[in-house]
């Protein structure tokens, strides 16, 4: 492949321009050569596994009775399976709470870091971003210890006021415990994206606004936020997709709170349990595709509703 490229590169330099059709053909070929390596990897490691999983999801394998073609049977089962549905309901609720919290925090921090210029802002920018650089697994283990009644600080802090520390591993509080972990991890990342978008705004706009008598709040609300709306939309979509596929944190914390976090806690965890714990690769694939469908519908609906009002503030 490299040979081919070198050859054609030298030939275009040396020879006189050919007829237009030949050049276009050559360009076409070159295009394919450049796309080729990516295309092969893309086909082999994304399209082919997806197609195979889709194929698997149409079959059913029983311990007794072997494999049979059930067409959409696994999907019918998934959408009537209380475990799957409660998992979906959990991630939807989780998205509704966690995403606004993350975005509001990220936006507030981005506006502050953008507006204040001192030596300290560079440092705090880095610190706010740092949790994103910590692998989710490590982050989850760390929070596992912070929430711990024996090792964590909560018992001591609440003890000062004579109160008992909340148990974030209990059924009632695990939702908030996980929201906290996710927000800690992702808010800094979203902040960086928003901050980059803010830096891209032409500063003369601020000057014009100030000439017209706008204060800092007005600049932030009426100039900055509307201008970074595309970036906000982007991170909203990112976080929506990511949250609906929630997996890492609960899967890790499961080892500390197995009674609270069941194997079917989120749809992705359920797919994992079915495929690798119970060897129901067929049903596991169906759950994955069902979840994929739900994510697609949610994201599509979201984009549809924000389509006409790109500047929705």
């Amino acid at each position: 492949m490299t040979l081919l490229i070198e050859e054609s590169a030298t030939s275009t330099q040396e020879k006189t321009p050919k007829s237009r059709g030949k050049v276009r053909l050559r360009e076409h070929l070159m295009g394919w050569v450049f796309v080729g390596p990516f295309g092969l990897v893309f086909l082999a490691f994304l399209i082919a596994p997806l197609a195979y999983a889709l194929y698997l999801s149409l079959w059913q394998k029983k311990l007794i009775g072997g494999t049979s073609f059930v067409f959409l049977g696994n999907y019918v089962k998934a959408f009537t399976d209380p475990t799957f549905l409660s998992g979906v309901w959990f991630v939807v609720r989780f998205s509704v709470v966690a995403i606004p919290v993350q975005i509001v925090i990220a936006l507030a921090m981005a506006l502050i870091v953008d507006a204040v210029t001192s030596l300290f802002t560079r440092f705090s920018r880095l610190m706010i971003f740092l949790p994103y650089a910590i692998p989710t697994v490590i982050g989850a283990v760390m929070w596992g210890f912070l929430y711990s009644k024996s090792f964590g600080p909560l018992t001591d802090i609440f003890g000062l006021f004579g109160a008992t520390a909340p148990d974030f591993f209990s059924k009632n509080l695990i939702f908030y415990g996980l929201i906290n972990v996710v927000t800690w991890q992702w808010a800094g990342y979203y902040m960086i994206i928003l901050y980059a978008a803010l830096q891209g705004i032409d500063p003369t706009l601020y000057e014009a606004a100030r000439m017209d008598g706008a204060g800092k709040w007005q600049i932030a609300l009426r100039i900055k936020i509307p201008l970074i709306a595309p970036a906000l939309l982007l991170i909203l979509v990112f976080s929506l997709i990511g949250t609906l596929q929630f997996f890492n944190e609960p899967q890790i914390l499961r080892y500390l709170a197995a009674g609270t976090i069941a194997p079917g806690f989120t749809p992705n965890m359920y797919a994992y349990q079915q495929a690798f714990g119970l060897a129901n690769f067929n049903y596991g694939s169906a759950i994955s595709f069902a979840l994929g469908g739900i994510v697609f519908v949610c994201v599509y609906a979201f984009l549809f509703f924000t389509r006409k009002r790109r500047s929705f503030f």
Partner: protein
Amino acid sequence: MKRKSLITAAALLAAASALAACAPDAGGGSAAGGSAPAANDAGGNNASNCTNTISKKDLPVVTFWGWYPNMQLVVDNFNKQNNEVQVCWTNVGQGGDEYDKFQTAISAGTGAPDVIMIEADRIPTFQIQKALVDIKQYGYDAVKDNYGPGAWKDVSIGGAVYGAPVDGGPMAMIYRKDVFEKYKITPPKTWAEYEQAAQKVKDAGGPQFGDLGANVPAVMMALQIQKGANPYTYDPARPESIGIKLNDQASKDVLDYWGRLAKNGLVGTQDQFTPEYIAGVVNGKYATYISAAWAPGYLTGAGVGKGKDTGKFAVAPLPQWDSSNPVQVNWGGSAFSVTSQAKNPALAAKVAYGLYADDESLTDGWTNQIIFPLNLKALNDPAFVDLKVAFFDGQQANKEVYVPAANAYTGMTYSPFGQYYFDSMTKQIGAVIDGSITGAQAADRVQEDVANYAKEQGFTVQ
């Protein structure tokens, strides 16, 4: 001998600065690179990726997965003493991690080893998928007398033998001597006494008496069987028909009993094999620990019994429901099984029967508290029986508690859907702990859940 949660617990422990975790590691040595002549196919059967070094290169090779901490030594002992076959060993993870890989290899039809270490309670799960070979015809008679009837029952289904027993987990009650002395109680002999003692300690302002962990459903299963539950009945000749009784009176009673203890605050509800739980054990937060014979080794590895809690532990027989008719049960314990992907089952069976059966390996296993041996050579060895266990402050724990328990153990019948059953139990025990359902309701839910799963998998449920 242990389970998935152990690894995680170990990993988490390593991170806990409060506890210096140092798991016993007898065989960490020699790097990979034992090349073998009989490299056959890909995956787990590939004999060119052994962790151990094979010196007798012209002999046929059997591939093996296992996770005992002294596996390296055991494999080397076997290879040294054997001139017929050599073992190529890989550790692909402990408990659940290994089962997931094995399960995937079964589904793929390739990639499994010839011989595999599995806990006895998982044998039916793999047997029903026809992933294991009956090794009765391959030398069972020669080793038959080396193990007790309970050990054989755990690895047998019908008349067929699906594994060579290695270690067991006769259950007992580990307790804190200091707590028992302080509140003037003697080790309870029955579960009724256990509850009374728990109440007494609580009324006197003492610690919790035990722990109901949602993540150790195997304990609940064993305790239900102790009371007379018979969860699964099946005839290997008619595998499509299975009896599932997870909500009989005995099962309900045991779940209700523990649910009541938890509700009354007599026992904790902490997941076990977690740093949180170990910290509780170290700090005397639990007066007893209902566990198996391998627990002292595990606890020592997790850092228990080394600091301020040195010499605080003792062990007593498992409390009974009916003291005139005691029943001993088992938690954990592993066997070596031959997989149906083995190229040469006869040769593989030689390894399954022979590995960890030589004196040197067995002695290393029990002196370092890695295994509670099922091999009668070790069980009857006076050095083993009379051992003064350091963890129990010199108590002759084997002689007084574990050996009688092992000898009285008659075997249990395990679930052919082990993973699903345990997941379901964990979920419902969790619900009992948070008080949303009673133990009896939990038993009903597990029954319904598992029976539905069985039907879905094509079984006829009786």
